[in-house]
Structure formats: C-alpha cells, structure tokens
C-alpha cells in the first residue's frame, strides 16, 4: 500500500478565476462540488490524500488483523490529527473521522434515514431544544434527491417514517435470519420491525456493483457497493472541477464582509492562496468550527463568522445503547456487516424527559470468528473448539439516542497543543446531559424485554454508565434566523460573511436520533442551489 494515498494532481497550485472554493471532500463537499461543477468553476481543497481504490482489500486486512487499530485503516493519527478531549466525557476523535478524498464515508456504516418531522420542531413538539428554522417540507425534495445521489436501498414498510414522495432507488436488503427470530419476540411484545435504508447497492447501481458480502463495511468496503464521497468527487472532476488533495486550509483570509482566500499548505510546506467568489466549508463538525476559530482577526477576534460567540458551541453526537446475549440456537451472525431491521416505533414518543431513539437489530452480534482466530494462545483443535463455542448463538439489539444541544458541550482550540503545522489542535469538550442518559435507560429496558421474550441469556449491556458516541459531529455552527443565537442562516450561509456557506451536520440545531448523513447530503444539495442562485 502506498503511504498516505497516491499523489494525483502533482501540481497543487491554486486555480485562477475560481467561482467556488469548496473546503473538504467528504460527501458534503463532494455533493456541492458535483452540483455546481457544470455551471461554475469549482475547486475543492482536501486536507487528506486521495487513496488508491486498489488498496481497499489490503485496508480490509488491516480491519481484520489485531495488529492494527481502527484509525490505522485509513491512516488517521499522528501529529497531523492530534486532538484534545477536555470534557467530562472522553471523545475518541480519530476513530470518528477520516481525512481524505471521500471523507469519513470511507469508514462509515452507510445507514441513511430521514429525520422525522418532529425533529425539526423539538422546542414546539417536545418542549426542549430549539426548533430548526426550516421544516421537513423544506427539505423533503432534497431528501429525495439525496437518496438518488447516494443510491439508497430501502422499502416503504416503515409506518413511523415521515411521508415519502417516491420509492427508494433500489429495493431494501431482505431481513436476515436473526431478524426473523427477533420478529417473533417483537410480535409478542407489539413492537413493529421494518427495513433499514442503506446507502449500499442491493443491485448494481450507478456503475457500482451490488453488495458482495465482504462483511467489513465498517471500516472499508472493497467492492464499492457501499456509497462513499469519492463517487461525487469523481463526478465533479468529470465535469471540470479541480480537486486538490493534501491541501490543508489553515486560515480563511477575509475582510469585514467576505472571505477573500483560503490559505492552504501542501505537503512540501508551501503556502498557497485560493481565491474564489464563494466559499463552502465542508470540513465536518469538528474541523469546520476549528478553521473558523483559527481564522480570527481584529475584525473577528473570537473567530471568523463568530459574532454570536457560538462557533464550536452545542457539540452533539448520538449515543449508543445496547443489550446483547446468547440463545440456545444458531443465530447466523457475521455474514454481512450491515443491518437489515430497525424499529422507529418509540421515536416520536419523545418529550422533555426522554429523547427520541431508534432500535437496531444486529446482524453481527458477537465477535467475528476470523478476528477471534488471530488472538488467543491456542491453535489446532483447541482453537477450532474455542471458535465453535464462541460463534453461533449471539444476538444483540442496539439503539441510537438523541442528546440535546448544550452550550457547555463544544469544540474549541487547545491553547497548549499544536499539530504538525503549528496550529492549535481541536479540543472536543463533550458533555452529554441527563435526558440522553434517561433515554438510554429507556432503550435498555425495551432491549432487555425483547431479549427476554426471545429466551436469551443477557451477557452485556451498554447503558448510561458506559455509553459512547456514534461518531456523528453535530451542532457546532448552528442554523437559525437570529444572528445573536446562531452562526448560519436558514440557507446555511454565515450571518457574518456574505460569500461563506457551511455544508454539514455542524448546522443542525438539534440532532434527532437518525444517522445524519442523508440530512447532510440533502442540506448540501440545498446549499449548492443557494450558491448557484447567488452567483448567477
């Protein structure tokens, strides 16, 4: 495998006369670039490398072998990616993102669902948190487009989901064998199960193959059946966009009302200035606020676009809750690495006390036998015996839970530590809050009742004391109508700077409990429309 990706465009100098400069080549930046590329001169600056698609199977080996940690798979870590976690809750940032063309979707799981209508009005409907300044109807056409862009396999069998206007582009993956075991128990308990919308091909789609069943979706899909941001980066390039990899934007040069240039450095340390009429920041929910905070000036002493003082504030993630156990019959886990059934039944019961959450029925409960085989001090018949007894009868139900935005949960700059370029590292100061913890308890209760109904012996619980993040970075440049209490307006343009838009989950005022990337994609398409309209 070739170091940090392969060099593509050796010339990393700026593009002259660019209309739009997009910073970050994850799905958000890639979708914006693709949508603007036919009409505008677009340049994308990406801090990480362009990885060679031919290396993916070797990355899969890294995912399986115990010698490698998860961040090693996509070469995260080291001085470039240094970070702090000063909050009461540790945040494992480099497990939670990838830097490179394609962004964190190179590593992601690929579950893509729309937020529920009530998620856009948490304050009004649930009595806590702010309302979004836009509602489901505003986003609905963009959700439909986003599903087509990403290639979503799904079905219309979820009666709790918000209204749809068209079928998903591909049929849903059929339920697993273990789903059928859960279905009996859930039937008894009156819990409805339904399919999961997946950004992975259940049939050949958009020039990419159908899922081949490698089972290592997270952190790498060797077949390309799982969507990632490289799809739209390539499409943008085919329409004339320029993508410069290993171009790290360290500062946004600006005047009082607008960004003038993105100042970036290339691997040899050369500094460049990319000028453009419009700038779209798409660096993810941690690096976007970091870049704004690093771009402070006399005019903006607290950081760029930060007249509200809220850049970096309200950092949110989804929290995981889970219960697992064993049955006295085979459950057929670990054939594929994705989920085929969920339940959103309890989602809209949310109120002030308990947040929204969704249940996930696992297809990969228990350890993968391949990974187990590489650890332990046995081999031969003893190892096989251990594998046979460890594999075969595990079950688990997971859940994602909403956390509310809190001002004391934030992304800041660490005053003491710097990265390899001498810039302050991001400090993810994560605070969770009691409502989320109560929600985890509520989810655990339902999970336990399902496993008990199934006759399982419960062997583990992830509850309020040992919960962790789902790696969804939201809230740090929140959207709103009032410049005093938000960073971007309802069109995702910063209140302070007329030519600066933000694409990504940092604009979410609240997070709901749905994986965020379909909403990120829908908002990115909406940002592309707004930028296009402004430049015309």
């Amino acid at each position, binding site marked *: 495998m070739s170091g940090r990706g392969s060099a593509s465009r050796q010339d990393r100098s700026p593009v002259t006369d660019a209309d739009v400069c997009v910073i970050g080549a994850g799905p958000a930046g890639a979708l914006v670039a693709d949508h603007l590329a036919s009409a505008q001169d677009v340049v994308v600056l990406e801090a990480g490398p362009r990885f060679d698609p031919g*290396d*993916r*199977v*070797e990355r*899969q*080996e890294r995912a*399986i*072998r*115990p*010698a490698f940690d998860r961040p090693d798979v996509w070469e995260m870590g080291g001085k470039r990616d240094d970070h702090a976690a000063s909050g009461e809750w540790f945040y494992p940032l480099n497990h939670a993102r990838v830097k490179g063309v394609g962004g964190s979707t190179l590593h992601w799981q690929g579950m893509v669902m729309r937020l529920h209508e009530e998620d856009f009005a948490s304050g009004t409907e649930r009595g806590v948190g702010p309302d979004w300044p836009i509602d489901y109807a505003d986003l609905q056409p963009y959700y439909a487009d986003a599903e087509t862009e990403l290639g979503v396999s799904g079905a219309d069998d979820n009666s709790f989901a918000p209204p749809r206007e068209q079928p998903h582009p591909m049929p849903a*993956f*059929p*339920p*697993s*064998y273990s789903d*059928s075991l859960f279905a009996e128990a859930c039937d008894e308990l009156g819990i409805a199960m339904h399919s999961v919308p997946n950004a992975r091909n*259940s049939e050949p789609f958009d020039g990419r193959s*159908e*899922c*081949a*069943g*490698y*089972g*290592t979706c997270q952190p790498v899909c*060797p*077949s390309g059946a799982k969507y990632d941001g490289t799809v739209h980066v390539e499409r943008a390039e085919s329409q004339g966009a320029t993508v410069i990899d290993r171009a790290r934007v360290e500062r946004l040069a600006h005047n009082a009302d607008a960004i003038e240039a993105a100042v970036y450095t290339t691997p040899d340390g050369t500094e460049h200035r990319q000028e453009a009429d419009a700038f779209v920041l798409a660096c993810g929910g941690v690096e976007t606020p970091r870049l704004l905070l690093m771009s402070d000036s006399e005019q903006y002493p607290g950081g760029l676009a930060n007249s509200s003082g809220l850049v970096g504030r309200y950092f949110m993630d989804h929290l995981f809750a889970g219960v697992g156990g064993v049955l006295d*019959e*085979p459950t*057929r*886990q*670990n*054939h*594929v*690495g994705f989920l*085929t059934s969920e339940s959103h039944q309890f989602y809209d019961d949310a109120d002030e006390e308990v947040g929204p959450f969704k249940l996930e029925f696992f*297809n990969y409960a228990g350890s*993968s*036998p*391949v*990974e187990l*085989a*590489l*650890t332990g*001090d*046995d*081999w*031969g*018949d003893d*190892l*096989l015996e251990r*594998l*046979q007894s460890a*594999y*075969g009868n595990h079950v688990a139900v997971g859940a994602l839970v909403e956390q509310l935005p809190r001002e004391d949960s934030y992304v800041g700059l660490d005053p003491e530590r710097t990265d390899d370029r001498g810039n302050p590292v991001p400090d993810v100061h994560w605070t969770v809050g009691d409502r989320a913890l109560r929600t985890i308890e509520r989810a655990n209760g339902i999970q336990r009742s399902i496993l008990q109904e199934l006759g399982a012996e419960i062997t583990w619980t992830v509850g309020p004391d040992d919960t962790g993040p789902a790696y969804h970075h939201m809230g740090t440049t929140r959207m709103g109508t009032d410049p005093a209490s938000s960073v971007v307006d309802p069109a995702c343009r910063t209140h302070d700077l007329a030519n600066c838009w933000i694409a990504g989950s940092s604009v979410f005022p609240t997070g709901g409990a749905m994986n965020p990337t379909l909403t990120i994609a829908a908002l990115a398409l909406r940002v592309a429309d707004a930028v296009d309209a402004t430049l015309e």
Partner: protein
Amino acid sequence: MELSRRDAVAALAALGLGGGAAATYTRRDGGDDSDPQSGTEDEEIDVSDGRVERVAVAAAEVLYPSQVTGVEQFVTEFLGPRLNQDGHGDGIREAVGIVEDRAQRWHGAEFDALDPDRRDQLLREMGVDTADEAPDGTDAERVRYYLVNDLLLALYASPTGGELVGVENPQGHPGGTDSYQRGPP
C-alpha cells in the same frame, strides 16, 4: 474437511491477491537470494521459496485443526502470491528464518523434520502462542504476524474454514448476500 483450490483462491481474494497476483508469481528457489535474515544468527538458514513453503506447510499441520485435509496444496497455493507481495513476502521469509534458526539450534533439525508435537512445542518455547501479532515486533511477535496468523487468516477467511466454525461467508470473503438470510443448515 477438504480444503480446495477454491478456498486458497478465496483466502487470497480476501487479502487483495486475486488472479492477477497469482499469475505473476515467480518462484525464488535456489541459493542466489536466500539471504540470511535479521533475527537469525545462522548465516546458513535457507529461506528460498521452496523452504518457506515446506516450513509453512509443517506449521499449518500444527496450527490447523486435525479434521482439515488438503493442507499442503492449500498452503502452497496461498503462499505463492503472498510471498510475492511487496514487503509482506520478505516478512514471511524472515519469520520462517527465525523459526528455522530456533529449530536447528534448539532441536538440532529443520522445522519440518520435527514431529508435529515438537513443532508445536518449539513455537510455544519461542513464545509465539502468547505473543500478540506485530509486523515490527519481537521475533515471536513477527512469527505470530507473518507465519502463524497469516496461515490462520487464510484458513478462517476461506469458505471451508468458515464452515468449520459455522459461517459459510466469513468476514473478508465476498460470499454474496444470500447466506445471511438463510437459517441453519
């Protein structure tokens, strides 16, 4: 249970070594490139591809469960492209050199000439059983990474290896999307 050619091909595919790599495999037999490897003290250790294969097969006979047959052919087919893989191939040669060195110094014979119990004992004496795999680690950790775990990964990521455990489509094997839907056989 018989390991087939299909299993070796599948194990290779799981490691990114499809047909192309197999086709370009060239043996490095003979004395000219049997360099002494670091970690061994004996300049004479032979790590030509033929020796490496014999040592790996002898190791697999100990590492694989007794009900598995067809080990020699499986290991040889797997090892060919793997030895040709940049960096990794040399790691395997080095690991074999370490094992051979210990076999000759501690037991007075080549590794594959020892009976299986002795081979098992030697690997344990070297601490390979309790070592965590590490490509840049101690001798035991490198033997664990390049030899022992490579062979275990090859077996358990193959369909036959998976079936032994009860999963026809083990992780790393592109076995499609039918088996996850099926009930127990």
